[in-house]
């Protein structure tokens, strides 16, 4: 992601060039990506695979946290503790293996270790499905509690995602210019975590407090957004905040950073970045709801599936991610084909391709997903969430781009 306005780290400084023509290099990468997507999905996620992690929420929470960890390694910690010489000289496959292993290790330490085992066993029951079974009464069986705990982890990731993107791309190294890695990374992470936990408490904790019988009203207020959202589900918050994150990625992958690069001077850049991302995110969120209303009629309280307010809010995230996956593929694999176009035209062309490609991808997924990925049929299935696969694809795209310099189609310009 080109975030040169705010950062001078490795991901902004490096230059990668196509090994062959742009078209051939892009196609080669696309092939490798497709192979990786099917292999990882069928081994780790599919209900017919080996590890069966797509429950669906367990798999969803896993991919979103690993995505965050990848971004933190690259943008917050600038690949610390590895030196530039390592990043420059080591073969992309070796680098990819090392950084992917670190990502998995960090996931195990941070999410499974700290959140699941430490906090879930000694602090907040709902972060650990075994704790829910141990202390819970009626209804707290492992099939349900695993989803409850996964939903809690997923919910926790959303404010972390939003605040991380604001800090990584809206502030970059402007906040602690005097600090070197890893001090800078830890200082930024500390701020991100502080703000994210506050947002989590406000926007998601009330939902989770209402996931039990009786409602845990002494530890979580009942969902306060009910009057605005027509639902007590925090999918409302999830939809808006996640669409805000997606808007930032859209801007960098489709519009060369526009409009976020309008303001350069801090702290106004950060304020502008945050406000514009929320406005754009809300627009993406609301526009999709308009489309859903047109297609299915207006949602109503207490309805199921596609007529349910909460499901529709969540589906805005899924659909935005269908477009985002295509936007990233287009930019990372074929982006250099657009360089000759003037800026505005380039943005428009990339946006049209991303939206058309994203919708085509969505249609293909819902048509052939059961055969290709072993997922269940239907758009609004209660135990299906395409966003899990989509974020897994984004993970693989970022691993290929950040960790492997776009190997095999691309290589580092030395």
């Amino acid at each position, binding site marked *: 992601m080109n975030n040169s306005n705010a950062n001078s780290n490795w991901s902004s400084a490096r230059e990668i060039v196509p090994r062959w023509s742009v078209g051939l290099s892009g196609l080669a990468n696309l092939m490798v990506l497709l192979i990786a997507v099917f292999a990882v999905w069928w081994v780790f996620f599919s209900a017919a695979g080996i590890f069966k992690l797509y429950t669906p929420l367990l798999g969803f929470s896993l991919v979103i946290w690993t995505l965050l960890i990848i971004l933190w390694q690259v943008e917050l910690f600038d690949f610390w503790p590895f030196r530039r010489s390592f990043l420059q000289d080591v073969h992309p496959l070796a680098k990819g293996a090392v950084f992917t292993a670190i990502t998995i290790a960090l996931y195990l330490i941070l999410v499974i270790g700290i959140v699941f085992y430490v906090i879930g066993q000694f602090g907040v029951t709902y972060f650990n499905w075994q704790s829910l079974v141990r202390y819970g009464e009626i209804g707290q069986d492992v099939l349900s509690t695993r989803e409850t705990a996964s939903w809690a982890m997923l919910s926790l990731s959303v404010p972390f995602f939003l605040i991380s993107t604001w800090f990584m791309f809206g502030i970059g190294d402007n906040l602690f210019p005097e600090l070197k890695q890893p001090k800078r990374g830890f200082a930024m992470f500390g701020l991100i975590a502080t703000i994210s936990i506050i947002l989590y408490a406000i926007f998601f904790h009330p939902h989770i407090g209402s996931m039990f*019988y009786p409602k845990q009203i002494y530890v979580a207020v009942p969902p306060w957004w009910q009057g605005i959202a027509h639902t007590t589900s925090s999918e409302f918050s999830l939809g808006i905040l996640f669409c805000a994150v997606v808007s930032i990625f859209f801007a960098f992958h489709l519009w060369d950073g526009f409009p976020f690069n309008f303001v350069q001077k801090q702290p106004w850049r950060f304020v502008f970045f945050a406000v514009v991302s929320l406005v754009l995110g809300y627009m993406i969120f609301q526009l999709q709801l308009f489309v859903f*209303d047109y297609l299915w009629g207006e949602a109503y309280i207490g*309805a199921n599936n596609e007529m349910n307010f909460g499901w529709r809010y969540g589906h805005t995230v899924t659909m935005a991610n269908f477009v985002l996956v295509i936007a990233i593929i287009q930019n990372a694999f074929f982006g250099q084909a657009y360089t000759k176009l003037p800026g505005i035209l380039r943005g428009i062309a990339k946006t049209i391709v991303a939206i058309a490609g994203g919708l085509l991808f969505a249609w293909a997924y819902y048509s052939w997903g059961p055969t290709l990925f072993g997922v269940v049929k239907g758009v609004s299935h209660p135990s299906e969430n395409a966003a899990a696969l989509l974020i897994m694809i984004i993970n693989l795209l970022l691993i290929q781009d950040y960790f492997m310099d776009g190997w095999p189609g691309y290589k580092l310009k030395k």
Partner: protein
Amino acid sequence: MKRRDFLKGVALTGAGIAMSGGVGLLSKAQAQGGKEDFGEVKSVKVHCISETSWFDNATLGADIKKAGGINTNQYDVAYTKENLGGFAALVEVEALDGKKTKYLLDTGWNNEWMDYVFAKDGIDKMLKNKDIKTLIISHDHIDHYFGLESTLRHQPDIRIFFPGTSMKKSFDLLKGADFSKTPGCPKNNVPHKGELIVTKTDKLYKLQEGAALVFFDAPATLQCRGENVMYCKVKNKGYVTITGCCHPGVVTLFNHSRRNFKDGDKNYGCYGGLHISVFENWDPKFDDLIQGVKALKMTKIACNHCTGWIWAEKAVQAGLPIVHGTSKNLSYKKTGTLAKSKTSNVYIGNGDDVFFG
């Protein structure tokens, strides 16, 4: 301006189709601007033959989790056999002239249990004597369909309404397939020889004057899809829905009748599983559902099975007209762990009746 109106002018059809995956179409009746009128009945009585599809949630949950979770194909899960029961109900429709017709809704799961409850209620004799001539399979889920042999043994040529979206293996079971190699999966030694009506979306199947069947292509767990729902219009009272699991959602069912049936805004009541807090798990969305059902202004809500005791209990607290059951279920040779715990009688349990009339 309403969101729908706003968009009508600007929406791209292609974008729309991709975003929806091509689902969510209006019913034909509504598209044609007309409303279905399938007559009226004097009363409906539903007898709960069995609503205990399984006896312990944790055991079934563990079986499903072990097989890969809730998205696994239902024929690939190894179930703990002693935990299995089944869902079935006897629906007795009284026509305006007083003539009564019996329908069997679903045929349960574990044959041993189904044979027991059928014998206890005389369903076996009714089938043999052809007092019951129609079996309605709400959907081909484990607990509503796997016990098929228990019905066919007594009447192989019974007329069956069967969801068109059922799995291929479920169609094979009708013909006499054997899947019992996997524990808890079915076999059928008595191939079906009678009329088979495969139900499809957007068509109303009139069972008799005042009673009809509507098929909804709704998603369900364990790779199942679709559900047949029975609607009865009780004279001077309104519509009653009778469901196996109600996967489309009870609010959706009454929204369907409001939009598609004559006098469709008259909601009288419902019977069956309402598929809410199935494993007694909870989600704030289920609180929304209580508000949604409240707005329907029903007179009688008779629920059990996959409704979730927690939802029914909360619905009572919210003032919904939940019909309470008796304790007959405790006299059965097996009772669910939920019934044994300190729960109130918010379910229409095994052996209970509910009368709409």
